C-alpha cells in the first residue's frame, strides 16, 4: 500500500470546490438586453405613416403676380342643374353614390368628432352635408376623410378626396403652385394667439419678446406667418393638428398657440386655462372650399350653392349654431369675388 490516501484528501476537496465554482461561473452571465432590437430584426411598428406633400418647385407667388386676388373664383353656374344633367366630376360623384370630403375631426366648432355621438360635426361639416344634399339629394351620403392640415392640398391633387372643407385659407401659393382651386369665400377668419391664463402677451410680438415657444400645425398659413417671427425670438414648435398643439400646451411643452380665431375658440373651449386675449388679427384668412384644379364646373356648382345658402339663411343658421356662442353675432356673409378665368 502506498502512503498516498491521507494526503490525497485536501486535493480531493480542492478539486470538488474547483468543480463547483467552475459550474457556478458558467451560469447565465448574459449581457444586458438592449433597449431596441439590433437591425437584423424585422421592424414591427405601425406608426401612422405620413403622406409626403409634394413641395412646389419654384413658387409662382414670389412675388405675387400683379392683380392676383386669391379671393377671386370662377363664376357660379346660373342655377343648380338637375341631377341627371350633371357632368364631369359631379357625374362621377353621382355615379359613385357618395361625396368624399377631406375634413378635420378635432377642430372643435368647425369640424370635430362629438365623443358622445361619434359623429363629426361643425360649421365646415354643415357645408359638406349641404353640398352632398345638393348633388345626391341626401345630406348623409358623405364619406368624411379625416385629414391633417398638411394633407389638404396633396389629397386634392392626388384625388384622394373630392373636396376639402377644413378651414382652408385661399392664397396664391395654393391657387398657382400646387395648383388647386377654391370656391367663393365662405368664412372670413384671421390669425390670433392663444396663451396661458394670466399671461400678459396679446400678440406674436409680445411672445417673441419673451422668447416663447409657440405651436402651429405643419402645412398651415399660420405656421408660415409664425416663421416670420423667428428672427424676433419666437421658437416655433409644430404638431400635426391644432389639437396636437393643445396637447403640447397642456403638457407645458409650448407657451402659446397661434392659429385662426375660429380654431383657437375651439381650443379655448376645451381648456379653461387657455385664453384668446382681445387682440387684432394679424392676418386675413379667407376660407374657401378646396377642389382639384381641373374641377372647374364643380367649383362653379358649389359657388352657386354658396350664393343660395348665404341668401336663404342656411349660412347664418349654421354660424349661429356653431360659432356665435364663442365669436359673437353673425357678421354679414363674406361677399364672393368672381371673374377668374
Amino acid at each position, binding site marked *: 500500500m502506498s502512503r498516498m490516501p491521507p494526503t490525497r484528501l485536501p486535493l480531493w476537496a480542492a478539486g470538488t470546490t474547483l468543480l463547483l465554482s467552475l459550474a457556478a461561473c458558467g*451560469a447565465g452571465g448574459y449581457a444586458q438586453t438592449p433597449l431596441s*432590437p439590433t437591425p437584423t430584426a424585422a421592424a414591427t411598428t405601425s406608426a401612422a405613416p405620413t403622406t409626403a406633400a409634394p413641395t412646389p418647385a419654384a413658387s409662382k407667388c414670389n412675388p405675387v403676380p400683379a392683380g392676383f386676388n386669391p379671393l377671386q373664383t370662377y363664376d357660379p353656374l346660373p342655377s343648380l342643374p338637375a341631377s341627371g344633367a350633371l357632368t364631369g366630376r359631379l357625374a362621377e360623384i353621382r355615379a359613385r353614390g357618395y361625396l368624399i370630403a377631406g375634413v378635420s375631426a378635432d377642430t372643435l366648432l368647425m369640424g370635430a368628432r362629438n365623443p358622445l355621438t361619434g359623429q363629426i360635426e361643425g360649421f365646415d361639416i354643415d357645408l359638406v352635408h349641404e353640398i352632398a344634399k345638393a348633388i345626391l339629394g341626401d345630406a348623409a351620403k358623405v364619406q368624411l376623410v379625416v385629414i391633417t392640415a398638411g394633407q389638404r392640398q396633396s389629397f386634392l391633387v392626388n384625388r384622394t378626396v373630392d373636396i376639402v372643407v377644413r378651414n382652408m385659407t385661399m392664397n396664391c401659393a395654393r391657387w398657382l403652385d400646387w395648383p388647386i382651386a377654391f370656391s367663393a369665400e365662405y368664412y372670413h377668419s384671421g390669425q390670433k394667439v392663444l396663451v396661458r391664463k394670466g399671461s400678459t402677451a396679446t400678440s406674436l410680438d409680445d411672445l417673441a419678446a419673451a422668447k416663447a415657444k409657440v405651436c402651429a400645425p405643419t402645412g398651415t398659413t399660420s405656421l408660415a406667418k409664425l416663421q416670420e417671427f423667428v428672427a424676433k425670438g419666437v421658437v416655433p414648435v409644430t404638431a400635426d393638428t391644432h389639437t396636437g398643439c393643445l*396637447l403640447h400646451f397642456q403638457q407645458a411643452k409650448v407657451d402659446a398657440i397661434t392659429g385662426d380665431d375660429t380654431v383657437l375658440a375651439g381650443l379655448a373651449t376645451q381648456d379653461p386655462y387657455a385664453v384668446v386675449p382681445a387682440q387684432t388679427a394679424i392676418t386675413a384668412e379667407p376660407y374657401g372650399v378646396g377642389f382639384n384644379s381641373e374641377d372647374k364646373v364643380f367649383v362653379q356648382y358649389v359657388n352657386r350653392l354658396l350664393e343660395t345658402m348665404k341668401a336663404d339663411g342656411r349660412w347664418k343658421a349654421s354660424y349661429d349654431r356653431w360659432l356665435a356662442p364663442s365669436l359673437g353675432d353673425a357678421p354679414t356673409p363674406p361677399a364672393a369675388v368672381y371673374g377668374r378665368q
Partner: protein
Amino acid sequence: MSQNPQARSRGPAAAAAAVAPPPPSASGPGAETVAPAVAMPAPAAGGVRPAYANSAGAPAKARVGTWVRGKASGTPGRMRLFGALAAIAAIVFGLAGAWNLWSSAQALGRAGATTDQVVRVQSIYADVLRADADASNAFLVGGLEDPAQRADYEAAIKRAATTITAAASAQPADGVALAALNSALQDYAALVERARAENRQGLPIGVTYMTSASSGLRTTAVPILEALLQANTERSRGELGAASSSWPTLVAGVLAVLVLGLVSIWLARRTHRYLNSGLAGATVAVLVALIFGLVVFNGIGSDAKRVADNQLAGTLALTSARTAAFDARANESLGLIRRGQAGPFETLWKARDAEVTARLKALVGRVSWYGGSGTNASALSTAWSAYEKAHAEVRTLDDGGSWDAAVAKATTATESPRTTFDAFQAASATAVDGFQSALTGDIEGPTTKARIAALVLLLAGLAAAVLSTRGIAQRVEEYR
C-alpha cells in the same frame, strides 16, 4: 540553486509534494539548516502543514526541500514524478469532463428558462397591443365605452404589469429593458386615462391624447419588446448549442490518455516489463470514460437539436404569429379611427397578416404538434382565415364609404373581427402553452443524463489517478 526557492515554489515541485508528501514524522536531520530564519508566510500548498513550522519551522521547511529532492532523484524519483504527472492528468480529465457535462446540464436548464422568458415577453407584447386595441376601439363608438371592453383593457394592462415583474425577477439581464418597458407602459396608461377623461367631457382633444398614446407605445415600448424577444431567443438558441459543446472533455481526455501512455512506455523501458497493471487500468478507465462522455454529449447534441428544431422553433413560430396577429388587429382599429385614411394601416395589416399566415404554414409543414389535444396547426390556420374574412368585410364596408356600418361590424359580437380574433387568440394561447411545456419536459431527460455522466467522469478520473499511482508505487517498491 538554493534549497529555499525550491521548497517555496508552488510550481510542479509543490504539486509533486502534494501527491508524494513528506512522511508524517517530524523527526529528521536538523543539521542541514541553512534556510534563513526570517518569518515565512504560512505556505498554502497542499502537502505542507503549518504545524511543522512552529519552533523548528525553518529546519522543517528545509527538510521538506531535501525530502523532495531525495524523492525525485534517481530512477525511483523519476518514477514518482511521472506517476504524479499521470495521476494529475487523470484527475484533470475527470474534473474537466465533469465540469463540461455539468455545464451542459446547466445550459439545458437555462435554455428552458430563457424560452419561458420568450413566452413571457410575448405575452406582455400581446397584452400591450391588446390593451391598445381595446382603448382605441372605445373611441370608435359614440358615448361611453363598452364596460366589457374597458374591463378587458384593465385586465390586459394588469397582466402586462404583473408579467413584467415576473420577467424581471426571472432574468436579471433583462432588468434594464424591462424597467424602461414598465415606464413606457405607465406613460401609455396615463395618456389613455387622460384621453378617457377628456372624452367623457365630450372634448375632441381626448382622441388626440389617445392617438398620441398609441403612437408613443409604438415608438417606445414596441422596440423594447422586440429587443427582449430577440435577446432571449438568441440566448435560448445559444444555450442549446452550448449544451453539446464537448471539446474540454475531448482535449482533457486525449491528453490524459497520451500522458498515461507515455508514462507506461517510459516505465516499460526502464523496468523491462511490458505491462504495469495499474497504469494500464488507468488508461483503460480514462479511455472508456472519454468514449462514454462523448457518446453522452452526442446524445445531448441530438436531443438539443430536436428540441431546438421542434419545440423551440414551434414556440417561436406560434409566439411570433400571435404578436403579428395582435399588431394586425390594432392596425385594423387604427385604420377605422383614422377615418377615411385606412390605406396605410391596411398596408401594415396585410404585412402582419402575411406574417401570421407564413408562420402558421411553417407549423403545419414542418414541426410535430405539441399544442394540446384540442388544437392543431391547421385548426389555427382556419381560425385565422375566419378573422381575415371578417376583416375583409369591414374593409369593404369602409372602402365603400359606409364608415358607420364598418364600425358597427367591427364592434359587434357576432361573426365580427372581434369574435373571430378572440377565437384565434384563445386557440393560439393554448398551443403556446402546449409547446412550452413540451420543451420543458423534453430537456429534462438530457439534463439528468448530463448530471449522471458528470459524476461518472469525475469518479473515473479519480479511479484512474488511484490506479496509476498504485502501479507506479509497485515499481518504486522494487527499488527498496
